[in-house]
């Protein structure tokens, strides 16, 4: 429980990530255009280390036979079965109730902390 310093801002450039260990769990710290997000490294599907997956975009809900690719850099794709998650919320793209656990992030004096409830 509590706040843990896990990285410095310089360690994780925009588009980058760092996997850290906090209170016996792995957490992925992602930098999206200067904002930092922390996701538990467990896929809610079958427990894969989801934060090792590819970061990309996805096709947005659209009309039939329309393709609108968006959210580039914001979608995390689980390496096991390809389920896609929004890094900013942890929610899967197909059902908002299916989500990766997320933690609050605090950036202060060039240091990144996550808060474990």
């Amino acid at each position, binding site marked *: 429980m509590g706040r843990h310093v896990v990285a410095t801002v310089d360690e994780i450039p925009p588009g980058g990530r760092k996997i850290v260990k906090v209170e016996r769990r792995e957490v992925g710290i992602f930098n999206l255009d200067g904002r930092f997000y922390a996701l538990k490294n467990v896929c809610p599907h079958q427990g894969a280390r989801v934060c090792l997956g590819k970061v990309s975009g996805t*096709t947005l*809900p659209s*009309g*039939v036979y*329309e393709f609108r690719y968006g959210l580039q850099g914001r979608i995390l794709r689980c390496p096991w*079965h*390809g*389920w896609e998650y929004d890094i900013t919320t942890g929610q899967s*793209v197909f*059902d908002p109730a299916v989500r990766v656990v997320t933690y609050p992030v605090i950036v202060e004096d060039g240091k990144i902390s996550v808060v474990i409830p």
Partner: protein
Amino acid sequence: MIATAPEQRAVGRDPAALRIIDTDLHHQLTNWEEVAPFADPNFRHRIVKRGGPAMARHGYKPVGAPFGTAPRPPSGAHPASDPAWVKEHYLERYGVDLAILTAQPQMLAIGVQPNPDFAAAIASAYNDWTLHRWLKPYDCFKGSILVAPQDPLKAAAEIDRLGDEPGFVQVLMGSAGEVPFGRRHFHPIYEACVRHGLPLALHIGGEGAGTSMPPTAVGYPSTYYEYYVSLPQSYMAHIMSMITEGVFQKFPGLKVVLYEGGIFWVPHVMWRFDKNWKAQRAETPWVVRPPSEYILRHFYHTTYPLERAPQAKYLHQVLEMIDAPRTLLFSGNFPHWEFGSPFDMAQELPVGLHRRVFVESALEVYGERLLKPNA
């Protein structure tokens, strides 16, 4: 007793008085001279022939009695060739108040005849014959608009031509085709169905004939019963195609009735489909809900023939999985009772389901048209 008295015709039927709605009666045209007045003059010489027009068939034929225990006229005539006889000896004998006509087996291969224009001409003539010989004189029969999907715009035009004719309650296509039915060039057919408030019915039987794909995904079986057992493969492929190609996003009012395919494969498709959609939906971003939701919302199944599970509890589980109180309709398949009596088969359903399956779900699928007079 069938309600054909003039005053009842005028106001339509009382749904509470209905006992059985049979969604699948294969009426039979045996004398093609009867079609002559309705045939396109440019195709009449090819349609009005002894034995009917030359049509591609498959080579699978059942051994044994094709009509089983179905009532048969002593004259030896085809049991479903004379509407007056069918009314008296099938409908009235079994307590069937309404029966939806679904054409003879030969016609279920209309969609895989090589010539799209000839196929459309046969379908049109057949539809008009059905209307004048069966529907206009008898309110107890309801019709299906048979269409040949090879030319989808012609098929849509046929639906527009007959879609407001009160005797027709659905559009009918054979489930055999050249490609899966979700493909975009078919969409005008579905648009026309919705425009007229008509469900789309698919019926197995043309698989392997004409320009059809082989009847199974791996090719041609050797025997009729192998052929018959494999036929739900067509429905699996069409369901997946129609959902992934966005048919129900474009036409949210479309209902699809699947004839003679059984039900036990439906949960498999629903959940395999959902599982893969979660990971791969990005290929079809317009599929915004889990595929099983579209299946449960848009597809209906029929009772003839139900799979024969070794324990009743297996059937009850599957009925629950497919939301059978909403999605299962009684089908008599008269006169093709090669797998037994449709009424015996329906008795395997839990009693609490009978009213839904025999009457109420059909009323929900087909709506007011079922209750109104044909002419």
